[in-house]
């Protein structure tokens, strides 16, 4: 069982509000990821980080931003939430193993509903 946590689990918020989705892992993993997933659909990578002070945009364009100030923490922020941001957001982490592909472990997700 992977030790990766996300808060809040559910969030209902009005349009225009600023929100931050929290993600923390206690495994000391260097790599962390944020995915967006609509119900019954595949996961789309929106941000990733290979270490402290390293952040990159993923395959799916997103208006959210991320930061990686500490190894264990990878928060995602939406400055002004819109209904189009309604989705499930999944955080994952993996351990860099010097050239060997490593497994990504996922948190429980945050279900966001923007009214």
């Amino acid at each position, binding site marked *: 069982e*992977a030790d990766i946590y*996300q808060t809040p689990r559910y969030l209902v918020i009005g349009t225009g509000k600023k929100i931050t989705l929290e993600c923390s892992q206690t495994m000391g993993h260097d790599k962390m*990821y944020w995915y967006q997933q609509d119900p*019954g*659909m*595949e*996961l789309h*990578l929106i941000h*990733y980080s290979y270490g402290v002070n390293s952040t990159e945009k*993923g*395959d799916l364009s997103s208006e959210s931003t991320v930061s990686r100030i500490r190894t264990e923490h990878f928060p995602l922020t939406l400055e002004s939430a819109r209904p189009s941001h309604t989705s499930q957001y*999944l955080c*994952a982490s993996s351990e*860099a*193993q*010097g*050239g*060997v*592909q*490593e*497994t*990504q*472990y*996922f*948190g*429980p*997700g945050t*279900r966001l509903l923007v009214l």
Partner: protein
Amino acid sequence: GESVGLHLPTLSVQEGDNSIINCAYSNSASDYFIWYKQESGKGPQFIIDIRSNMDKRQGQRVTVLLNKTVKHLSLQIAATQPGDSAVYFCAETPGSNYKLTFGKGTLLTVNP
């Protein structure tokens, strides 16, 4: 472009039967493959992985088969149980510095 997809979006089986979930991929450079299980309201959970230098790998009640010739991956679940009901995703990557690409998922329903 490159993609990973699943042949069947839904699969319904009787409890105790064996289940086979299929996945096709198009990236010939894919080197590492993972199967994830996602239950309702939860994040994906790692089930089993396989590298391209292998054809088969077995876990507890699960077996992953890789056919690189036709770019096909399958997950076999033996003696399927109601707790196996979930969406199953395959994912692939060409290597450690590349991102995982996920397929669309197959919903497995186990009937008692």
